[in-house]
């Protein structure tokens, strides 16, 4: 047994040290844990959460390529890509806030639970200060919620559901990609112009959040121009053969089929529709038409020749001739030997936008970064003048209406841009009924 004796001198010393500690200004002590995963060394870690397995693995691989390219550019390697055309000139090629950018990757598997698990692991084990990526709205909404709780920024990848910045919006989440409402607003006038205002549309819709919101958006936009929606049939996400859903279209009186499908669903339903001769059919004295509101070049490849002449919308296309797009296509093409997809473009932009916001805010603190992104106006990233709206963290920019090319010159040359719909035409109020029901809440810096 040992005796513990506290002398008067010892008590004074201990008291002085404790007092000094307590008297230290708060920012010195709180700085160590001011926000989740504050980078303390010479590097900063970003978490790229993309589908590396599962049905969207090819899209995920393209996203990863773009992320790696963005990291190279941020660290001052390569030709700089869109950093050279970006209207903000904060990025100098010396990392972010002088810290070299490193990254970790996760596999979302296009499953919400797997995506949340991989994001959690990157935040808790790898110290990722920002999570980005994804190729599905279900996943984006799930990961966005997790990032809000964890106190890190989420820069969404390919997510098109209105809900991501609608009822499920979060203060820590930001979306560069367009949404179902914008597709409808951009596409409807072109459809009315090409096919007339007296049309009867039959919708086949994937039975989940993205399908519902897109169908609602397209139906509302086309009905406003005089179209009638004859029917909307929900199809299971797991469906492969759509013949039994296509067959009733033949005798429904409809003269337009709208396929609110994405990925494998889109490839299969479009293939089936063309097999059943819908493209060559005459109804109500008009040519029968098929519309695919959300196009992806990677998916269009799966449908092969069936995409020819089919109208749809897309966030970005590599054939755009603006300075930013050309810089990105050149940089990506020289690195990988083929042009980038819209998924690659949006995630590249998101990475630069995040890095730029950190520089402007002078911190990685999510609340500082969010404040820098809110209401930010920029240009030079391939979509013309763009605005990151503060109220819902949705980007507003021009939307492309595209069409399956009749005579493609290569396996990448499948779509052609038929119209660049100006931003003003696709804007909506933050409290629009299609986006109602949620609240952004307060920014969460975490620990």
């Amino acid at each position, binding site marked *: 047994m040992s005796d513990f004796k506290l002398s008067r001198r010892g008590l004074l010393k201990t008291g002085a040290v404790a007092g000094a500690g307590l008297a230290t200004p708060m920012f010195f002590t709180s700085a160590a844990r001011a926000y989740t995963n504050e980078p303390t060394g010479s590097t900063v870690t970003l978490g790229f959460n993309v589908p590396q397995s599962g049905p969207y693995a*090819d899209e995920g691989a393209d996203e990863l390529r773009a992320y790696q390219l963005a990291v190279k550019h941020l660290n001052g390697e390569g030709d700089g890509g869109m950093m050279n055309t970006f209207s903000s000139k904060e990025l100098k090629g010396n990392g972010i806030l002088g810290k070299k950018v490193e990254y970790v990757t996760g596999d979302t598997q296009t499953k919400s639970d797997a995506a949340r698990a991989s994001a959690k692991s990157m935040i808790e084990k790898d110290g990722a200060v920002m999570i980005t990526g994804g190729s599905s709205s279900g996943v984006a909404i799930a990961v966005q919620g997790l990032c809000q709780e964890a106190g890190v920024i989420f820069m969404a990848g390919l997510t098109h559901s209105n809900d991501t910045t609608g009822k499920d919006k979060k203060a820590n989440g930001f979306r560069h990609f367009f949404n179902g409402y914008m597709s409808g607003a951009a596409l409807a006038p072109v459809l009315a112009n090409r096919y007339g205002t007296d049309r009867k549309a039959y919708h086949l819709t994937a039975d989940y959040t993205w399908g519902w919101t897109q169908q609602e958006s397209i139906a509302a936009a086309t009905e406003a121009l005089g179209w009638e929606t004859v029917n909307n049939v929900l199809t*299971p996400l797991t469906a492969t053969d759509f*013949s*039994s859903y296509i067959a009733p279209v033949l005798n429904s009186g409809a003269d337009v089929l709208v396929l609110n499908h994405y990925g494998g669903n889109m490839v299969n339903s479009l*293939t089936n529709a063309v*097999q059943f001769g819908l493209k060559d059919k005459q109804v109500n004295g008009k040519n029968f038409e098929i519309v695919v509101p959300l196009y992806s070049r990677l998916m269009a490849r799966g449908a092969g*020749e069936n995409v020819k002449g089919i109208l749809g919308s897309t966030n970005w296309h590599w054939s755009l001739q603006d300075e930013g797009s*050309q810089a990105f296509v050149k940089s990506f*093409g*020289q690195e990988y030997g083929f042009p980038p997809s819209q998924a690659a473009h949006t995630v590249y932009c998101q990475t630069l936008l995040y890095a730029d916001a950190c520089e402007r805010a002078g911190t990685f603190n999510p609340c500082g970064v969010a404040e820098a992104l809110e209401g930010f106006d920029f240009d030079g990233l391939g979509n013309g003048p763009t605005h990151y709206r503060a109220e819902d963290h949705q980007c507003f920019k021009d939307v492309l209406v595209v069409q399956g090319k009749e005579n493609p010159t290569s396996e990448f040359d499948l779509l052609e841009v038929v119209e660049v719909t100006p931003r003003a035409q696709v804007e909506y109020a933050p409290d629009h009924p299609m986006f109602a029901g949620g609240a952004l809440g307060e920014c969460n810096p975490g620990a």
Partner: protein
Amino acid sequence: MDAILLQILNGLDKGSAYALIALGLTLIFGTLGVVNFAHGALFMIGAFCAVVLQKILTLQKVVLDNENLTAWGTPSEIKTPYAEIWFGDFGAKLIDYSVPVSILLAIPVMLIVGFTMERGLIKHFYKRPHADQILVTFGLAIVLQEIVKAFFGANPIPQPAPEALRSSVDIGVMLGFAENAIIYPVWRLIYFVFAALIIGAVFAFLQFTTFGMVVRAGMADRETVGLLGINIDRRFTLMFGLAAAVTGVAGVMYTPILPPNYHMGMDFLVLCFVVVVVGGMGSLPGAVAAGFLLGILESFASMNEIKSILPGIDQIIIYLVAVVILLTRPRGLLGRKGVMEE
């Protein structure tokens, strides 16, 4: 009436694929007693035989065009398939007909895959519980599909039918209905006829050949056939190869209907197990009958009139039928008495 006829056609078409896969599954279960969860992967491998042949036939000679640059500044490429350079019009025709021609590649490939699978893995699990067989074959299916994905990517790869067979025909006019009432794709009709021929050929093989007779005898009483000095194991191995080949060619011919991807086997697997259970485990006619029956029921359940009364019925109809069958007639529609029963 025309809508009903159209859904019957759809059902027969879907049923053709179900029946062909379920036929292979039940052949394996009936002979070897193995529950083969890798059977869907065989369907997928068959489909990818068509993809491989198409890739071989469309191997291209690449000439760099220095005068035309790509958007990223490298010379553009002018590609011409070697088949067209070497064989002219015949080469172009061969590429056009690559899907049916793939059957010639798929049969030997699938026989080899089947033999290898049975000899290399499944034979070690004959005496193990069904749960072990399911686990190991399911694991094998995942490995096979991941290998295919590593080589071919995750996206579907379009395999167009020959140009002359890509159109659709107005069956309604032939049956006395109005014009455009029943339009059906030619290739789907071909698939149905093809499936009927394959099913007929398998039954004829088992019914009218000595080999088939021995196999049937082995299915009924394996021990006695073995006691007669017949190497029934070797015959059963051959039947595994045959089942793989049947499933493989079903996969090849299915590719123009839906572009194949690495996951297509899994999409069919569970459905086809339900088909086998409904038809009766080990019953070949049962598998075929249940395949067509469930295909037709699934198509009817997708009709708007039915869905408006019972929303979501299209997603559960097959499983609903399976539940009813298992409760009322556990041996399945045409199953042998005693199988799956107390």
